[in-house]
């Protein structure tokens, strides 16, 4: 299934895009998605940590993804 993937802050620099479509297998969880990201973009390990948001809400690792979900890679925030 297709996952719309958004990158923000330093992660958009590291992967050199802010938006792409990734294919994942049915019933993949957020954790599976993170493993796929690490394989595809090993350069992401250069940052502290990042959170994942699914459809504009922070998501836990065990959340199961659906086709056409929008997944955002959220590096440490620094607003204010």
């Amino acid at each position, binding site marked *: 299934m297709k996952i719309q993937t958004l990158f923000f802050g330093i992660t958009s620099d590291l992967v050199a895009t802010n938006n792409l479509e990734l294919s994942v297998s049915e019933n993949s969880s957020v954790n599976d998605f993170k493993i796929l990201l690490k394989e595809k973009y090993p350069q992401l390990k250069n940052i*502290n940590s990042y959170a994942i948001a699914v459809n*504009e809400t922070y998501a836990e690792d065990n959340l199961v993804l659906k086709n056409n979900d929008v997944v955002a890679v959220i590096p440490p925030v620094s*607003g204010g």
Partner: protein
Amino acid sequence: MKRTSIKITPKKLNLQECYNFVEDDSCGGISAFIGTVRNNTQEKEVKQLDFSTYKPMAIKEMQKIADLALEKFPIHKIAIHHAEGMLQIAEIPVIITVSSKHRKAAFKACEFAIDTLKETVPIWKKEYFSDGEVWVNAHP
């Protein structure tokens, strides 16, 4: 009656607007936090800051903070406005105003709102120095 005002804008933030939103005859005070762009970080001179946002999610997270502040503290109204784009030294990236019957609740809610914003709202700043630029908080 709307008790929260949430905004992310590329325009200059307006303190008077945030004040006017929370002002009310039933309240004995208004507290405000105004974030400003500082000209240095770790003794290095900063030239400007660029704020980028995941706007729809940032608006939702700011709304959650405002709603939670209304639940947690006996306050009347709260405004949280944040800027996006390039800001120069002394310009204002964030304004939070809170009104309440008694002052303590307004102080506490204001501190809670800015502390939580800095932890949860998907907004990032890039610091520009004379010799390059750095994403804030990205590295240990």
